[in-house]
């Protein structure tokens, strides 16, 4: 372990250069974003039957529970949600101005499309999903290249390649981790130069089937009907995979024996899938056959798993929690009252397009609801409101989203693939530092958490905070205090760049007093203090 750490330390300068090269390369590749979205070509907005069906399903739950749903959130709040979950930042002032000047009634739909077309969606979502596919650990750098995997996955998401095809690539891919980045799915399970078959089996079930089979390693699953033998069979599907200088390969020779936990004697385990072996084709390598089985059109767990995952990423809370321990679906029939089944079927019959799935969820009434609800004032039936999704969930933002919003708010212009590469490099490294200091959520990123004292200290007193609030010639705080035409405009700008909203009347009247008559240095300090307060406010680090 310490040797590995030394190696990593030695490679740190290389990593820096590598990171910059990756950033520059992807900046050069990305198309320039369309500045004003005016088309609705990619997905037919009229094809909203799935949206209506899900809306009806959820409304039925409200009726059943006798609970009134929250009212609609305002458009700026919805825009903030969309950019936070899809780009990992709050919208820039530049984007906000454009959005506010767009008065058409379908602007949210068009902006959803615009956000998904932007390379920032592909990059950010690739990072979220890569935690599921290759974990959050460092891994062995020599045989595992997370950066390559990110870029590869980002490319797949950007072109909206059918989800099942990229999963098949990951499970069965062969070659070098740099040249064929999808094989990093396998390379991430290498410990001490040995491929951990159990880890691969566990991850395959969790990431692609939304079920935890890994606990069956030592005992049968506490509630699902996973047996120890089923786990070993699944793990044996990876028995023939090998790692060498030419990369990840499939060995031809027979390696069907494994060590028994008790005796360490050889026992023969045949590669097998835990259910419906008839979905496994006869032809191909064991991994190709496994990949075909996982993504088989009758394997409903596959589509249900990604639907629950995407739902979780968009709401901060999965439909079924925990996200990767979903109960078994009904055998043979699709349950038309089960939201996961309904969305999963739609997903599968529409080319397993992730962009389409996201678009549909974003169009649902439940995604556009306010997080304010009378129950949250009166304290009556709070749990019921949450159980039936009668208000948008209030969840903690990921550290990446907090630092992403901070960096975006410190600049008036949009920070994206068109920004200067130095700005992008700064963002890349700042993000790494901040995430480490704030506390990486690891793979377990959809668990509900509150904030901690350490995070409060970081937001209040850290160098991130001091740098970010400082009113200089180039910072947002400095520029706003200089360019705002009057006190009201100044407050408006501060609130928009930090919180994606205008100040309330109460806030305006209380805060304006500080700015009245203040000039020069004194004014800058007041704006700096306001920036600090906005950054430390609950709104900044919570999704609502």
């Amino acid at each position, binding site marked *: 372990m310490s040797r590995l750490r030394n190696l990593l330390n030695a490679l740190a300068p290389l990593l820096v250069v590598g990171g910059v090269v990756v950033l520059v390369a992807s900046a050069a590749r990305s198309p320039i974003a369309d500045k004003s979205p005016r088309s609705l070509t990619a997905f037919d907005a009229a094809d909203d039957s799935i949206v209506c069906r899900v809306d009806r399903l959820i409304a039925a739950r409200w009726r059943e529970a006798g609970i009134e749903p929250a009212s609609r959130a305002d458009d700026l709040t919805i825009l903030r949600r969309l950019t936070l979950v899809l780009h990992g930042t709050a919208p820039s002032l530049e984007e906000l101005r454009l959005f506010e000047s767009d008065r058409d009634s379908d602007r949210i739909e068009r902006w959803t499309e615009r956000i998904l077309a932007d390379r920032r969606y592909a990059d950010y979502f690739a990072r979220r999903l890569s935690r599921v596919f290759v974990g959050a650990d460092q891994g062995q750098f020599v045989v595992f290249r997370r950066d390559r995997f990110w870029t590869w996955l980002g490319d797949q998401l950007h072109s909206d390649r059918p989800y099942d095809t990229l999963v098949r690539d990951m499970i069965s891919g062969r070659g070098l981790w740099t040249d064929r980045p999808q094989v990093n799915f396998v390379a991430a399970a290498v410990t001490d130069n040995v491929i951990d078959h159990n880890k691969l089996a566990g991850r395959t079930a969790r990431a692609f089937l939304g079920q935890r089979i890994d606990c069956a390693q*030592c005992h049968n699953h506490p509630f699902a009907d996973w047996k120890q033998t089923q786990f070993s069979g699944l793990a044996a599907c990876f028995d023939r995979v090998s790692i060498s200088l030419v990369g990840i390969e499939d060995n031809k020779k027979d390696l069907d024996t494994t060590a028994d936990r008790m005796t360490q004697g050889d026992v023969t385990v045949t590669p097998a899938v835990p259910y419906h072996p008839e979905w496994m084709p006869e032809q191909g390598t064991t991994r190709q056959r496994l990949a075909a089985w996982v993504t088989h059109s009758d394997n409903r767990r596959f589509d249900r798993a990604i639907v629950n995952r995407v739902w979780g990423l968009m709401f901060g809370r999965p439909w079924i929690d925990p996200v990767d321990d979903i109960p078994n679906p009904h055998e043979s029939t699709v349950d038309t009252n089960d939201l996961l089944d309904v969305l999963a079927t739609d997903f599968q019959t529409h080319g397993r397009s992730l962009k389409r799935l996201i678009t549909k969820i974003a169009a649902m009434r439940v995604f556009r609801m306010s997080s304010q609800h009378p129950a949250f*004032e009166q304290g009556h039936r709070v749990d019921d409101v949450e159980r039936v999704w009668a208000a948008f969930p209030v969840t903690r933002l990921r550290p990446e989203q907090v630092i992403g919003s901070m960096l975006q708010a410190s600049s008036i212009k949009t920070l994206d693939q068109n920004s200067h590469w130095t700005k992008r490099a700064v963002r890349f490294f700042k993000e790494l530092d901040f995430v480490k200091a704030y506390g990486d959520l690891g793979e377990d990123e959809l668990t509900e958490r*509150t*904030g901690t*004292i350490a995070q409060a*200290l970081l937001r209040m*007193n850290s160098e991130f905070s*001091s740098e970010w609030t400082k009113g200089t010639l180039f910072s947002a705080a400095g520029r706003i205090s200089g360019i705002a035409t009057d006190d009201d405009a100044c407050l408006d700008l501060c609130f928009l760049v930090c919180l994606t909203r205008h100040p309330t009347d109460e806030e305006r009247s209380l805060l304006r007093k500080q700015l009245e008559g203040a000039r020069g240095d004194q004014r800058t*300090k007041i704006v700096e203090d306001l920036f600090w307060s906005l950054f430390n406010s*609950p709104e900044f680090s919570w999704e609502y």
Partner: protein
Amino acid sequence: MHSSRRDFLRITAAGVGLSFAIPGLEPRAADRRGDERAKSFLTIWLGGGPSQLETWDPHPRTRIGGDVKAISTTIPGCQISDFYPHTAEQLHHLSVIRSLVSKEGDHERASYMLHTGYRPEPTLVHPSIGAIATHERPEETVEIPQFVSLGDATFPPRGGFLGNRFDAYRILNPGERGQNLVSLVDQDRQTRRLENLSILSRTFARGRQIKAEQTLHQHTIDAARRMMTSDQLKAFSVEHEPKPLRDAYGDNAFGRGCLVARRLLETGVRSIEVSLEGFDTHTRNHEGQAARARTLDPALSTLLKDLADRDLLQSTVVLVTGEFGRTPNMNPLEGRDHWPNGFSCLLGGGGLVSGLVIGSTDPEGTAQRPDDPIEVADLYATVLHRLGIEYAKEIVTPIGRPMKFCSGKPIERLSRS
């Protein structure tokens, strides 16, 4: 990070000022000794799964024993691995349990089990024992966090359904005072910033008062501010400790962590975990375990002696454990794999009976279960009982389900007073 010395002086000065202003306020519980002290809980966490055969339960010269040798200890008749010569001399302070059993063989699930006494469940996160101790026995005089995790633990202990504010406060690099503890601006500006903040918080609470409270946003800010001005922050530093003592603990993160743990115990911190990772030796087990022992042995033995010398051992329950043990049989890579069917821990202090050896494992490595098996829940019932906490107390969890703090029963042999 930078100018930490100046910050330190500023904070110290503030602390001194405070103690002048409010006579009678006792900044540390350190002056109380022995029975007068409320009991604290200290876990030495050996992450990755230490091998029982290379720590407290060696079987030398057997098929499963590996190359390890056994040495005698200050507990008559009890031998441990020769990787731990210093600990052997302090072992009489503790008892040895060689027959822990659990059903969890995955790191994450087993770490959960060994932190909480419960197996993971999909609908509920159980609180760690350290969090329960803090919840049930808060120490009013402590201004720094009452539950502290020292070291870069993979699975730090959590507050579970008691709430995240009972999560352990983490010091990743023990010996550093903790980061971001000094305000960026002068008092007037800080006041303005906090006033602005309360205006913004009011807006956020509108229409979602209960959700806003559940975020604990204001609570963490208040706790952070209290901590920023506390004299007790000194407990996180080791620079004023004598060099020979620091060297005896070991000049590494874990050694410093153990020394800081002692200082936190003196301050009155309720629960502490010091973690040492790297026991997951699937390959070359002997070398891997030996390397960890070179860090663990000096630190643990010095800590036990230091606590005993300062009369802190009577008021501190000490537990040395990992998430599971390792297979009796070696795998083809000369490693040992995960083994929850009979592994070892050390337990003592806090008035528990010391010098006992409980349970034994099969020297042939064929038995499925050890003799005299001890369930993890019973281990923790023993700990909670010692801390003066009603271990079987039922509390209603956020999902409305009543749940006992601990489902086990105290091990009577250890609890006899």
